[in-house]
């Protein structure tokens, strides 16, 4: 599959590790298209933008093809990566005629969710009885009770949002941080058994970033040409938060077990733990949590099968798979690569 635009330099290809926001450069220089010298005229930029869309999605077998493109890393510089991710995550249906309606439906769902969970007790409707509805009320049903619980949860999320990709300027923006916090908060409230767990913030961040990049490209392309209705709807920057929420929710369908701390076995008693083999592998001592089972399997089976030497080395050094594996799996390898590589990688992992 040949996409002329895949050669185009993407802002994410700039070196992130310097802490410099590549998007700044991108905005200043105006066009990704112009950077490669291929399409220095505004007209051809917009044409190529349209063509890139058509190449990706105007094909009877497009879904299989963009999956393949994602796996082989060819979406790296695509300006519609967020659309591809939505398709991988089934946030968008395969049938393109439903894209706009589905998008609107999900956005209005988030609108309702947010309205329901992010409430100001002073404005809350309903309970007007001041015995219940006052800040000092101990009543379970008091909107103030909820308000204080929410405050605690929000504080917990906010603390982690402040530590999200600290080296990238985009995530230092107060507005972006508020969006991340609100999305995670709504997710926690919608999934009370899971709530918010550390690591979710690092799954959400790349999603938000990819949406943001595509929105930037869209806004630029719209200056010179009239985009299609689908583009206008799907890439509307006003709905970044809504779309990110829908994508996170879908992603968590897969990732949820790695965040669960549900223990499947009764823990071993202290006696047994202390009398077991000295310096025995910590991975064998703990209770059976889904993620521990998973990382044990990675080391004891996958690594052993594919790299016996590495497997022996790890065992010799008594390196438990938890040390590297929990981070790998819970963050879907999000921390193991620089962000721009990760964005390609996550796309691949999704499919």
């Amino acid at each position, binding site marked *: 599959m040949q996409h002329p635009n895949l050669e185009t330099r993407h802002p994410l290809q700039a070196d992130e590790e310097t802490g410099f926001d590549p998007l700044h450069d991108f905005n200043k220089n105006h066009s990704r298209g112009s950077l490669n010298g291929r399409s220095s005229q505004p007209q051809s930029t917009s044409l190529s933008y349209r063509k890139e869309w058509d190449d990706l999605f105007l094909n009877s077998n497009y879904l299989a093809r963009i999956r393949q493109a994602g796996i082989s890393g060819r979406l790296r510089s695509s300006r519609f990566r967020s659309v591809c991710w939505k398709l991988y995550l089934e946030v968008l249906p395969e049938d393109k005629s439903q894209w706009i309606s589905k998008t609107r439906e999900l956005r209005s769902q988030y609108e309702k969710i947010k309205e329901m969970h992010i409430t100001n007790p002073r404005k809350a409707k309903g309970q007007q009885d001041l015995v219940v509805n006052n800040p000092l009320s101990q009543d379970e049903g008091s909107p103030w009770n909820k308000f204080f619980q929410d405050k605690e949860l929000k504080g*917990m999320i906010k*603390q*982690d949002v*402040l*530590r999200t990709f*600290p080296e990238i300027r985009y995530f230092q923006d107060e507005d972006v941080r508020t969006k991340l916090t609100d999305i995670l908060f709504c997710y926690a409230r919608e999934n009370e058994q899971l709530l918010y*767990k*550390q*690591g979710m913030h*690092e799954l959400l961040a790349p999603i938000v970033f990819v949406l943001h990049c595509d929105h930037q490209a869209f806004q630029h392309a719209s200056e010179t040409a009239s985009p299609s209705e689908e583009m206008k709807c799907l890439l509307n920057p006003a709905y970044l938060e809504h779309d990110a929420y829908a994508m996170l929710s879908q992603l968590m369908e897969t990732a949820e077990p790695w*965040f669960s*701390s549900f*223990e499947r076995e009764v823990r071993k008693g*202290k006696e047994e*733990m*202390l009398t*077991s083999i*000295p*310096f025995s592998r*910590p*991975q064998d*001592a*703990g*209770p059976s*949590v889904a*993620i*521990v089972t998973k990382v044990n399997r990675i080391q004891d089976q996958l690594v052993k099968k594919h790299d016996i030497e590495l497997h022996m080395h790890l065992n010799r*050094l008594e390196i438990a798979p*938890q*040390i590297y*594996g*929990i*981070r790998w799996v*819970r*963050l879907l390898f999000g*921390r193991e690569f620089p962000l721009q590589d990760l964005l390609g990688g996550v796309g691949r992992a999704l499919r």
Partner: protein
Amino acid sequence: MAYAYLFKYIIIGDTGVGKSCLLLQFTDKRFQPVHDLTIGVEFGARMITIDGKQIKLQIWDTAGQESFRSITRSYYRGAAGALLVYDITRRDTFNHLTTWLEDARQHSNSNMVIMLIGNKSDLESRREVKKEEGEAFAREHGLIFMETSAKTASNVEEAFINTAKEIYEKIQEGVFDINNEANGIKIGPQHPTTNSTLSGSQGGQHAGGGCC
């Protein structure tokens, strides 16, 4: 590098109290104000000298959030020392100490030396927990206590080293059975040269870390 003893430590406490920063300050002598939060468990090492003997500290830095508790618990076992950390600017992190302590005592060997640390002592203006409260808690539960600042490095060396001294004294007194490695203590290798391959591959992450 050869060492006389290896002591295994764990660092525990609520999320955001500065566990990873304490470790980084101790192993690398630097402070990183904003960093990725710890997912699961991280690892650091450094060589210190006590009583003229080289002692290697192997430190396990655990994630603070409750959801990791069931995973990190298994690291309590076989630790000779624990740094239990709270944030002097956040009362709730102090209030949770009892839970942490119960958890640590339940899953570790009874001789484990526990150092209580009130971190972020540089943020005096935002202090919510008095130093006396920390001292009282430590006295009541038989812990050693110190206030530290991972930012200014104040008392960081002392916290790690004093814990080691206490463990070392217990060894001298015969409290620890050093032949039982479940106590978190290993006697150094008899033939240091056999360890050379390990030191080569482990040197990278924590520059001050020495070898394994």
